[in-house]
């Protein structure tokens, strides 16, 4: 084993990932803490507040998993990762799971040897234009100058969209969101394009947000979700079903307000199975019977987490859209707890 260390970093990466992956749940329990990878800061999704406590939509997933696995939503060590360090941090075992607005793609799932455990936010690339431009659809943007982050999938999506609609554009390459914000406000480009959630968050910081509109077209699929290492299915199941528990709780009307009352037992057997008063779901996962109750109690159900961090009452003001329950025309559809 020792010699292989020097043969090739990638081989070792695979081996180490495989070796470290055996029994992540046991590791987490033994450690008493969940190591959860998050971003170094993204408005609404993950950022430490003035007291240094992490808050946000992705952070809530980490807290729910910690609550399910350990019974304590504060037993999380948040490991900030950048776009460049996130995958190696997960592969090397430095973190147990990554909840960092990461798009679920084929190559990340298959080639990088990770396992996406679900989708906690359906995002997509959108467009923002000043209202005074009088544009109501992206198809009217012929000849526009577009601010676009270089080296991202958004750049390729943009080229595809304009080509398939047979219209032309002039790209203004920029490096970061902060730069884009300044360029767009200074009028260096007519349109700013990036993920719709990012556009909404950016617009919220403007002096006069109402002067800018998001166009209705969404030109790409960006399913964001938590991920774990390949090969440790027990741990993957814990993360997957914790996320499903949050979604199911919203569907069944279990909230952080009524959870105490409901966990005494209800007439709905699925709620009872979710909250552990009936059946042995927790035991099957290798967790305590009240894991689902803890996960929901940590920050509320999916809808509450959404409303608190990125929903319409926050400065970011995202509508549920695709992220509504399937019963309300969205894509959130958790398999049944049975």
């Amino acid at each position, binding site marked *: 084993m020792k010699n292989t260390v020097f043969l090739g*970093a990638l081989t070792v990466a695979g081996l180490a990932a495989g070796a470290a992956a055996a029994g992540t749940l046991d590791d987490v329990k033994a450690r008493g803490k969940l190591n959860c990878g998050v*971003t*170094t800061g993204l408005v*609404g999704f993950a950022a430490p507040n003035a007291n240094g406590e992490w808050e946000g939509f992705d952070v809530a997933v980490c807290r729910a998993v910690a609550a399910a696995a350990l019974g304590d939503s504060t037993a999380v060590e948040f490991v*900030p990762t950048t776009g460049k*360090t996130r995958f190696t*941090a997960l592969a*090397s075992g430095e973190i147990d799971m990554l909840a960092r607005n990461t798009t679920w793609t084929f190559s990340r799932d298959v080639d990088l040897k990770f396992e996406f455990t679900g989708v906690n936010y359906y995002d997509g690339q959108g467009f923002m234009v000043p209202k005074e431009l009088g544009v109501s659809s992206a198809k009217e943007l012929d000849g526009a100058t577009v601010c676009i982050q270089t080296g991202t999938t958004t750049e390729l999506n943009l080229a595809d969209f304009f080509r398939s609609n047979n219209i032309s554009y002039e790209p203004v390459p920029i490096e970061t969101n902060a730069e884009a914000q300044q360029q767009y406000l200074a009028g260096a480009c007519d349109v700013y394009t990036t993920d719709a959630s990012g556009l909404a968050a950016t617009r919220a910081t403007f002096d006069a947000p109402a002067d800018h509109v998001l166009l209705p077209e969404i030109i790409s699929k960006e399913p964001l979700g938590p991920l774990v290492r390949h090969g440790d299915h027990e741990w993957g199941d814990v993360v997957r079903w914790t996320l499903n528990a949050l979604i199911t709780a919203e569907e069944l009307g279990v909230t952080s307000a009524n959870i105490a009352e409901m966990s005494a037992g209800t007439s709905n057997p699925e709620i009872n199975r979710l909250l552990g008063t009936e059946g042995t779901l927790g035991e099957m996962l290798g967790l305590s019977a009240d894991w689902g109750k803890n996960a929901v109690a940590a920050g509320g159900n999916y809808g509450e987490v959404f409303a608190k961090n990125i929903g319409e009452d926050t400065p970011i003001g995202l509508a549920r859209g695709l992220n509504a329950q399937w019963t309300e025309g969205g894509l959130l559809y958790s398999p049944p707890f049975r």
Partner: protein
Amino acid sequence: MSDKTTNSIAFVAEGTIPESPPPARETGVYKWARENLFSNIPNSILTLVALALIYSVLSNTLPWLLNGIWTTSSLAECREVLDGKVGACFSVLSERWNQLLYGFKYPTEAYWRPNLALVLLLIALAPVLFFDLPRQLLGFTVVYPFIAFWLIWGGSILVPVIAFLGFVAAAVVFQRFGKGSFAAGFFGALVAALVVWKVGGFLIPEGASENAMLSSVPSRDLGGFMLNMMLGVTCVSLSVPLGIALALGRQSSMPLIKWICVIFIEFVRGVPLITLLFVASVMLSYFFPPDATVDLFLRVVIMITLFSAAYIAEVIRGGLAALPTGQYEAADSLGLDYPQAMRLIILPQALKISIPGIVNVAVGLFKDTTLVSVISMFDLVGMIRGPILASTEWNGVYWELLGFAAFLFFIVCYGISQYSQWLERRLATGHR
């Protein structure tokens, strides 16, 4: 002489004429302005253009600075208070002051510890920087790194004590055997230090750091400008001696040592610092098992130190090359051996020549410490780019935050450069 008697001159001054003030156009501000600002037509045009520029810069920035708001709790509130007027939103600095200086995870009740470490740093640096001070002060400088480590990281006091004892043991062994043969002294010292650390490691009781006098703070919790200062001070003070060793090694007549130094210097100079940092943070975690990694702070310190040591080595090599061969030959003819010749004759002159270059590297290194933000360490720039700009309250505040960061760095870097100029004047011996 005869004219006096014949009285052929109409007037002879009997006393001195009282002094009259010089003409108005030859004095004071007027003269200065005429000579310096309006001496000819091109100069006058330049002056007017410059005045217009200064006016436009000031008229744009001054209202922004003076109207600044310090007391609101979010950018939206700032805008409300300003109500369309121009003004900065400095509230972000006052609200996140501690986060900017110490990072967001350093325990609030322990802020006095890095503060004290900073004050002690000034005391420890004084005898190194100003050699007119009494030499006894250097004793404190030697102990300072261990005190600072204990203050900032906390935990059991036994750790820095044993680390210090290891160095003491190494020094004693080196004193004892180094006289006979340098190699025996060097490797003996190495073994002595390792033995002390190994034995000392067993002596530290399990869980000693949990109930220590100062609560233990992991490296991941360090941040803010404190992290920049720590990285800058540690790396500069480690890389200067390492750079000297590398520069001398590169001139060595022993091929093995020479080629090791040449290859090391050329390799490190050929690689961007940021790739070394990625290696430190990303690649190394593949090579170590997950629970036995070297501390991230230490990994970064090693990488930055190696990087700047290579540059300093080249600067010092320039200083060595500038010395005439006669200096080396003079040292040899006095019968000095190699260490003595270097210590007494060659290095004092070479280092004096190299001061501007070394300071240049040091200033660059200090600013390069902000690069650690790309490997998700929250130094000052990392704090600004990550947590602060990503909070819903402060997203969109750029000028105030980055201007503040620039201001802090300017103070330190300007201080370093002023010191180096003083040092050059102090060491000037009139060879030029």
